[in-house]
Each structure stands twice: as C-alpha cells, then as structure tokens.
C-alpha cells in the first residue's frame, strides 16, 4: 500500500502549505446555504402574507377590520370585522389553558420535586407522546366523545362549541407546559432548596415559597408558549368548534376561530384574486403576528429566568 501522503517529502515546507482540498473549501458554503434556507423561509412567510394583506387593506379599511363586529366575507352582505374570529380563538384558547395550566404545572412540580429520579426519567418522554398524536385525531375525540359527554353535564351545550375542543386542546398542550415548566423548576439550584429546608420549611412550603417563585418567569414562559400553540392550533377547533363567526363570549354555542376560518375558505373553491382569497392571508398575518409576539415574550422570559438562576 502506498502512503497517501507519500508524494510529499515528510517535513518539507510544502507539507505545511498544502492547500485545503476542494471539498473542504466548498462544503462550508454549501452548509451555510442549508442554514440560510430557514431565513429565506421566514422572509417568504412575511412577504407572502404581506402581499395579500396589503391587497386586502386596499379594499377594506383598517377601521372596518378592527372596529366592525361582524365577519361575513363569504356572504353577499360582506362585513370584515375581525372580532368574531378573535373572540372564537380567545374562547377556545381560554379553555385550553384552563386545562393545561393546572395539569401541566402540577405534573411538573410533582415530577421535579416529588417523583423519584427513575420515574421522572420514564414519565417525561411518555407525556410527550400526547403531543405527538395528530390533531385530527383529537378533533374526532372532541366531537364524538367529549362533546356528548359534556352535553350531559352542561345544559344548552351545542354540538359545536368552544368548551369541548378547548379542553381537548388543553390535553394536547399539557405536555408542552409540563415539560417546559419542569425544565424551569428542575433547574432551580439545589442550594436554594437546601437553604429553605434548613430554615425549617416543609417540602411543600419550600416548593411553593422558594422553588416556584424562583422558577416563576420560566414557568410563565411555558404558559405563554402553550397559549401560542392553542391560538395557532387548527384541526381540533375546525372539527369541533363550528364554523360560525360569532362575536360572543358564550362558550356553549358554535363559533369560529381564525385558524378554522382559513381552513373553511381553503376547502371551498375560492378563486385567486378575489377578496375572499385575500381574507385568509389577512387573518393569517394577524395570527402570525399574535403568535410571534407570544413566542418572543416567552423567549425573553425564559432568558430572564436563566439569567436570574445562574
């Protein structure tokens, strides 16, 4: 076998000045392009949404969009007030968080403070299975199982409503809230727990007076991220909450969320260039901005938490 470096005299100057191989030089740029795709995607999202949104606002005034209380772009008497869709989204998200916050936080505290390490390691990933179930499946569950069940308890609950998809969405979000709050709680330094115990605190008080307050901004970040998920979740609410934009806070009647509206229009045969077509981009833009703000707040709260703890 020939020494692959045999052409060169070992120790000669050429050894050190050997140019880097062609692949070696090219590959860095190729990989950079891969990484840059993600930036292009963001720009693409913004431009796509912006283009149609601008078109939309050339025909519909800001005033109507933000101050009218009816949303009827698909009828002949068209109104473009966004509030019914926001109310629908807020209602379903509210019930989702009403479910996910207590369940998620309690599981997180239990896992971090009480569960033996073995159980903690085994349970955390198995919770995450919940987040991996397709959302159509949850939608089916909400419509065919949870709604009939709730109808036995809540008088006047319609077949489509905000409560049932809200709760089911909450179940789906629970692992996200649990997992992120658990990370925050678990990373509170042991020394603070020991200090609290040495001051005569019980485990429970140590948890609630020291550990949770210290992890607070990290925990809140998990709530906000969960909320952002709920706002952007589509299939569960499309299937089980109805498609009737309604400016109401009554959770028992059919409503429509922003996401469900986009699906509703996409399912129909709305021609490109019509006002109906551009509404989904305007709604999408609003959705994008809301979730972006939530995600950014969560990001900064998490950063603040890490800085406070370390």
């Amino acid at each position: 076998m020939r020494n692959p470096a045999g052409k060169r005299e070992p120790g000669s100057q050429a050894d050190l000045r050997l140019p880097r191989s062609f692949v070696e030089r090219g590959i860095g740029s190729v990989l950079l392009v891969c990484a840059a795709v993600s930036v292009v995607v963001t720009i693409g999202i913004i431009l796509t949404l912006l283009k149609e949104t601008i078109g939309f606002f050339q025909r519909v005034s800001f005033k109507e969009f933000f101050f009218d209380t009816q949303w009827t772009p698909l009828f002949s008497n068209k109104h473009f007030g966004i509030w019914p869709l926001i109310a629908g989204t807020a209602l379903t998200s509210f019930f989702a968080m009403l479910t996910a916050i207590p369940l998620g936080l309690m599981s997180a505290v239990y896992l971090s403070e009480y569960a033996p390490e073995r159980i903690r390691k085994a349970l955390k990933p198995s919770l995450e299975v919940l987040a991996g179930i397709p959302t159509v499946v949850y939608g089916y569950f909400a419509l065919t199982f949870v709604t009939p069940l709730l109808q036995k308890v809540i008088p006047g609950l319609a077949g489509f409503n905000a409560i049932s998809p809200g709760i089911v969405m909450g179940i789906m979000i629970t692992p996200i809230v649990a997992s992120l709050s658990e990370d925050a709680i678990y990373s509170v330094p042991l020394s603070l727990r020991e200090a609290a115990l040495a001051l005569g605190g019980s485990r429970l008080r140590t948890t609630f007076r020291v550990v949770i307050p210290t992890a607070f901004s990290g925990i809140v970040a998990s709530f906000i991220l969960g909320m952002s998920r709920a706002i952007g979740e589509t299939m569960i609410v499309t299937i089980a909450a109805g498609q009737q934009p309604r400016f109401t806070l009554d959770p028992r009647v059919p409503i429509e969320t922003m996401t469900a509206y986009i699906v509703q229009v996409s399912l129909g045969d709305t021609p490109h260039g019509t006002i109906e077509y551009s509404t989904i981009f305007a709604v999408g833009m609003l959705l994008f901005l809301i979730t972006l703000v939530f995600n950014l707040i969560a990001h900064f709260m998490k950063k603040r938490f890490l800085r406070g703890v370390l």
Partner: protein
Amino acid sequence: MKRRESGKNVLNQYPADSGVEKAFKAIGIISLILPVSLLLILIIDTTADGIPRLNWSFLTSFPSRFPEKAGILSALVGSVYLIGLTAFIAIPLGIGAAIYLEEYARKNRITSLIEINISNLAGVPSIIYGLLGLGLFVRIMSLGRSLIAGALTLSLLLLPMIIMAARESLKTIPQELREAAYALGADKWMTIRKVVLPLGLPGILTGIILSLSRAIGETAPLITIGALTYIAFLPESLTSPFTTLPIQIFNWISRPQKEFHVNAAAGILVLLIIMLLMNALAIWLRIRLQKRNV
C-alpha cells in the same frame, strides 16, 4: 427571647408528613395520570368504533359516496408519497444546516440571527406554512395543488424540528474526539464525515423519524395549499393532485352521517398504527446504533 427547652418531646410537634403535603402529592400524580388516561380512553373509544370497519377492502378501496364501500387507498398512497418526498427534501437540508451551525458557524451576528430565526420558526403555527405554500409554491411557482407543492410545504415545516434534533445530537459528541481526528491529520470535513456524523447518527435519525411521524399527521397546511379531499385515483407524477390519510379522516369526520364517522375511526386506527411503527423504529434504531458505537 431564648427559652431553653429541655427534656423529652421538644422536637415532635407535628406529624412528619402533613395531610396537605399528602394531598398535594396525590394531586400531582392525578395531573400526570389524567391526560394519559384520557389518551387511553381516546384509543379504546376509537378502536371500538373503527375496528369493525378495518378490513382489507378498506385499505384497498378508493373513497366513495357509500360509507361501507369507501376506503383509504388513495389517501394511504398519497401519504406515503408525500412523506417520502418530504424526507428527500428536508433531511439533507436539515442535517446540512445543523452541521453548519454546530461545526462551522462562528459566534457572530449572522449565526445568532439564524439561531433565533430557527427557534421562532418552530413556534409558527403550521397553518401559516400552508399559507406560505399556497402563496409561494401553488401560485408564484405555479406548481398547482400538487404532490410536490405539498412536499415542499411540509419540508419547510419540518426543517426547524430536524435542525434542532440534529443539533442536540451533534452537541453530545465530545470535543476530544474531534481533536483526536484533527491530530491524526484529518481535515474538517473528513472529521465530520468519519467521526462526528457516525457518532451523531442515532440521535439524528431518531429526531428525523419522530418529526416525519409528526408530518404524517399534519392536516391543516395541506388543506390550505389545496390537497383534495375526494380523490379516486393514485398520484402519477410530482404534479399530480393528491390527498392524504389525515385529510381523508377529516373529510369523513365533517360529514353528518354517523357511518362516515366509523370510517374516520378506522382511518385513525391506521394512522396511529403507522405512527406507532415509526416511533418503534426510531427507538429500535437508537438502541441498535448506540450499541454499535459503544
């Protein structure tokens, strides 16, 4: 202020594990068990609904107006094509980006911009990707409501997930191994190919399979780009119209007739079984490859 207690029993004033604490522990356990048991109910309920309908003809028939004749053939094939195509696009991009960020990128503005951007993209609702696909691939690139437009859309959706999983895996590889390779005269790319990637592979593959199994269940962005809900043929080329399993399920759920709900339940069972198999594959791969490395 200071009293000097002496004698017995100064120390036992109340029981060691107070009732409140016990109650709290119970609440914690219930909070953990409740969502998981609801999941079990969901699975049992769906199985009970769908199992009578789950037979060979259900898998090999096209959709139909008659619930008892309808099947998922076109949806199943559509899903398989779509995921295959998505994997083909997203995996190289995702791994490439991860390698760049972990192995090549210097700590500068551009890198941190890319990083913040990726973590933000992971939080963008999937339906927004659908709007991107609709505006960009379907309209501007004139790909129509085709398989390739769907695959491109899903690829962009998966990209942040794959990049993050791959980076996590690359992070766990000890720096000394890289240095050992450099010390043997390997250049950077050689080191990555022969040392870093083989070691990171189990983690990367697991992450990829898990995100692909998420993609199989994605519905909203595909509806938005206009995947059809009723399709009685198999896609023939990249530009063919298509449907997928979750869309077919959604279509059946939205029908008022209860018989179609049974079809939906059967479809859900098929979907869950596919996902289960993919997850099992991910776990098996990880265990196998890890063994080999150690």
